[in-house]
C-alpha cells in the first residue's frame, strides 16, 4: 500500500498514541479511496493524502485538544526557553532518543512542520498545500519550530552537563 508506513509514522507523531494512529490511517485510506474523484491530476498526491490524515487528526478528540490555536500565527506560541550555544548543541553526540523526546515535547504545529520538512522532505510549497497555509507562513513557522527544537536540545544538553 503506497505511503502506508509513512502515514502511520506521521499519525503516531501527531496523535502520540498507536491506537489513535491506527484509526487515523484507516480513516485516511477510506477517505482517500472515496474521495479520489476530488483529487486533481497534476497536483501533489502525497500532500493530498497527508492533508486528509491531518484533517482527520484535527477532527479527532486528540487533535481538538492539541491544536486550539493552530493557524493563529499572530498569537504568541509557547516556545521553550532558548539557551542554545554552539557548545551545547553537539549534534553528533545527541542520542536519537533525545531528539525524539524533544520532538514529542514540541507543540503539535511545530512537530508536524518539522516532520513534513525533515523526514518527508516535502518542499515548502507541498508543505503549504498539506497544511493549507501560504509558503511565507511555512517559512516563519518552520523557523520558530526549529528554534524551539534547538532550545529543547540545548536545555537537555545543559541538564546532562550538570
Amino acid at each position, binding site marked *: 500500500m503506497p505511503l502506508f*508506513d509513512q502515514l502511520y*509514522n506521521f499519525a503516531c507523531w501527531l496523535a502520540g498514541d498507536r491506537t489513535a*494512529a491506527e484509526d487515523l490511517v484507516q480513516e485516511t485510506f477510506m477517505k482517500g479511496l472515496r474521495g479520489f474523484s476530488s483529487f486533481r491530476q497534476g497536483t501533489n498526491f502525497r500532500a493530498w493524502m497527508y492533508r486528509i490524515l491531518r484533517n482527520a487528526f484535527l477532527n479527532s478528540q486528540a487533535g481538538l485538544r492539541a491544536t486550539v490555536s493552530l493557524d493563529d500565527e499572530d498569537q504568541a506560541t509557547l516556545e521553550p526557553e532558548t539557551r542554545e550555544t*554552539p557548545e551545547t548543541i553537539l*549534534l553528533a553526540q545527541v542520542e536519537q532518543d533525545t531528539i525524539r523526546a524533544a520532538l514529542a515535547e514540541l507543540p503539535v504545529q511545530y512537530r508536524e512542520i518539522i516532520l513534513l520538512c525533515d*523526514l518527508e*522532505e516535502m518542499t515548502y510549497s507541498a508543505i503549504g498545500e498539506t497544511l493549507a497555509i501560504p509558503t511565507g507562513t511555512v517559512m516563519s513557522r518552520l523557523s520558530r519550530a526549529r528554534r524551539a527544537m534547538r532550545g529543547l536540545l540545548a536545555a537537555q544538553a545543559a541538564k546532562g552537563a550538570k
Partner: protein
Amino acid sequence: MNCELCRNQLDAYVDGELAQQDFAAIESHIGECHACAAEALRRMQLKRATRDASQHFTPSPELRAQIGGIIAPKPTSPNSPNSQRSLLWRPAFAAVCALLIVVAVSSMLLMHHAARHQAMSEILDLHVATLASPNPVDVVSTDRHTVKPWFQGKLPFTFNLPELQNSPYRLLGGKLVYFHDDPAAQLLFEERKHRFSVFIVQDTDSALLKPAFSKLSGQSRERGFSAESWNAGGLRCTIVSDAAAYDVHQLAALMRSAQSQ
C-alpha cells in the same frame, strides 16, 4: 550580506529552497565567515539527525492486513447469487485497480526521487563541510603522484587522476570519507575561485548504499550546486561544485579520460 541576514536565511538554505541569487549570496558569506559556516553545518546535522530519529513507528502486520482488506476487492464465486450484481461493480473495481496502479507508480517515483535526493544531500553536506573546514583535505598536494598513493591501503579500490598541466583545474588534495560504512575518496580541485569535490565510491552489489548512489547519474542541479555523476569500471564518481555545469562537465571529462587509461 551580514551575519544576521545570513542566519535568517539558513533554514531555507539547508532545505534547498533559496533562489539562485540568495543562494550565491549565502555561499559567498559562508565562505568568509566561519561562525555562519559552522551554524549552517549544525543546522544540516540537526535536519539529518531529526530525519533519522523520527522514522520511528512501524505499523503492525495486522493493521496492514486490515486496511489492505478494506481497500482490496472481495472475490466472488461465479455461481453465487451476488455474481450478477457483482458485474455492476466491475467498472468500480477497475477504477480502484487503476487508482492503486497510479498510486503505486507515484509511490515508486517518489521513493526513487527521495533516495536520489538523500544520496545527493549527503554528498553536498560533505562538500560544504569540507569547504567550511580550516583543514579541508588530509593529503595536501597538487601532485597526482602524491595524492593517489596516499589512498593505498585506505580504500578497497584504486583510481587514476588526470594530468592537469594544460587545463584550468588544479588539484588541491584529498581525504578519506565514509558514506555510512563504505569508504570513499574525496578529491578537491580548484578552478579560479571555484572548488570542486570529486567523490569516488565502489559501485558493487555489496555496497550498502548502492541502490541510492546508483540513482545518481548524469548532470543535475541541487540546492544551486552543479553535479555530474557516472559509473566507470565499477566505480561511481560524482562531482559537485558551485561552478557552472559546463565547468563541472569539463572536469568530469578529464576524470573519465583518466579512468579509461
